[in-house]
């Protein structure tokens, strides 16, 4: 693998019997594509996509893919470090594995990592209007960024009727029945309701 991709594969190590490969963020997609397609690899099952942020703020955020090869019964962890100071962005593997769909959305939801090429990258566990940031980042306090009263105020201020995304409302052809301000925002091309 190192021969094929040269400098893009930085190092490989074995921790507790699990092989870990560190890959440059720019070539992650090519490497995973090769791992998926090459007849000698055939890593056809994507177990997990997640990210790790260390307590030490000097260490960059890592994105982690856990791959399995069902024909060969092998397991591989691919890691990519997003250097400090660069935008949190990395190529999506959605076109290789459909299972990446929700896993990448969750990773975006929790860490704010943008997956380039994901067709529908929006929040999944938190609601779409969530404003406090990305909960699993280390600078996010355990109690949440807003005070309890502010959280309560925001929750009470929400209109539960507006819980459909704009896409769904357009499907329902309910445009005419919407409140005025929602219609306005919809016509401006906003995606989400409320």
């Amino acid at each position, binding site marked *: 693998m190192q021969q094929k991709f040269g400098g893009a594969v930085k190092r490989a190590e074995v*921790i*507790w*019997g*699990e092989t*870990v490969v560190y890959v440059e963020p720019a070539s992650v997609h090519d490497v995973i594509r090769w791992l998926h397609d090459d007849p000698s690899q055939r890593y*056809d*099952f*994507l*177990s*997990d996509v*997640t990210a*790790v*942020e*260390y*307590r*030490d703020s000097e260490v960059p955020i890592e994105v*982690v893919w*856990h791959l399995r090869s*069902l024909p060969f*019964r092998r*397991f591989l*962890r691919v890691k990519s470090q997003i250097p400090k100071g660069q935008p949190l962005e990395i190529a999506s593997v959605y076109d290789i*594995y*459909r*299972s*990446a*769909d*929700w*896993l990448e959305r*969750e990773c975006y939801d*929790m860490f704010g990592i943008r997956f380039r090429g994901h067709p529908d990258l929006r*929040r*999944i*566990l*938190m*609601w779409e209007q969530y404003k406090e940031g990305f*909960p*699993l980042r280390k600078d*996010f306090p*355990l109690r949440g960024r807003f005070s309890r009263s502010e959280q309560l105020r925001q929750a009470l201020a929400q209109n539960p009727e507006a819980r*459909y*995304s704009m*896409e*769904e409302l357009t*499907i*329902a*052809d*309910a445009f005419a029945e919407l409140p005025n301000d929602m219609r306005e925002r919809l016509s401006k091309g906003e995606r989400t309701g409320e």
Partner: protein
Amino acid sequence: MARRTVEVELSTTGLDSQGRPQRVPILTDDGGGGLALQAPPGIEPDLNGEHMLINIGPQHPATHGVLRLVLELDGETVVRCIPHIGYLHCGFEKMGEYRQYNQIICWTDREDYLNSIGNNVAFALGAERLFGIEITERCKVLRVIASELSRIMSHLVWLGTFCIDIGAFTPFLWAFQRREEIYRLLEKWIGARLTTSATRVGGMAADIPNGWMDGLRQFIRTFPHTLDEIDRVLTKNAIWVGRTVGLGVMTPEEAINWGLSGPMLRASGVDYDVRKDFPYLDYETYDFEVPVGTNGDVYDRYLVRFEELRQSVRILQQAADRLPDGPVNIDDPRVILPPKSKATSEMESMIHHFKVVMEGPRPPIGESYFAVESPKGEKGYYMVSDGTAKPVRWRIRPPSFVNLAAIPKMVEGHLLSDVIAINASIDIVMGEIDR
């Protein structure tokens, strides 16, 4: 999809003229051969393509928790399905970064709450890989018993609720009666029924009490009768077959690419079981079979899970026969609490006790991903340690989260009432999906 016939026993006619069970053709896609029960195209009146948006959940008994599905319907046919999740998000992964490893075990109960003791085992195994601990033989067998009991419990809940969704009430009662027996066993062992917190890093919270194995053997002896009964009621029941065959089909390639795991993947014909392929807890030394389906539809998922119940009983029997004597916990005072009698009488044990409780065991710097075969599929715990007593990152790989992601693909083109059956066949637990 090729045409498929399934042998069913019709309650009214039952047997054909030769005395054999009648074979009834099931709706097919290819439609030819005069056997298709579908109306020929063009007969349906044109309704001007007016689509309707319908919302199921988040508070609806058939969504098995707080799942919300927004469906676009053309008549009664689902054109598009948009799932919404997150109503039960608790932030377990975030909280785990502020707790010691043994404290996290209490949260593993609460994510997949139907399989709580299985999660305890999975998390402890992952943490032990991170610590570099080799557990004792007795502990391994006890954990196998715990995992398989929990698999039976989870499958029984699935079976019962699935029956209710389809409209059969009796198997639900039978399943829950037997589940109650397992709960009583667990209560005797751990002291808790649902939130067990049974494991510790390096061992178990408690050894089994005297006479507990008799209760387990009693269960192993009687449980197959219940399975036979449910089998007789459901497997060849015409209504049951009619409501489940041919729904939500996933081909093997699709199933792998969508990341399905567990019974969902095996029903599609992919022979992948973590217990067989990446063995842990000496599962390779147990004699059991991994049931694999052929069609990847709801009916095959039912068959696969049903056979898994029987195989779990086999594993339980073998584990009960081989349970060795000896200590349950490893002998390492840095990880395991000393006996309470020693902690209050010996200075050294008291110091160990204090350090394990207040500071917590410390793993070396490193990371581990440990996957087990949970009832729902491949459940993985990914832990990263920086050498302190609290993990830097604790990640759950939730099987039903990934399985549920395929629901838009599975329900498209089916009827609204089939959405309920397909959703039930995924065996979702929202506590695990939202975490």
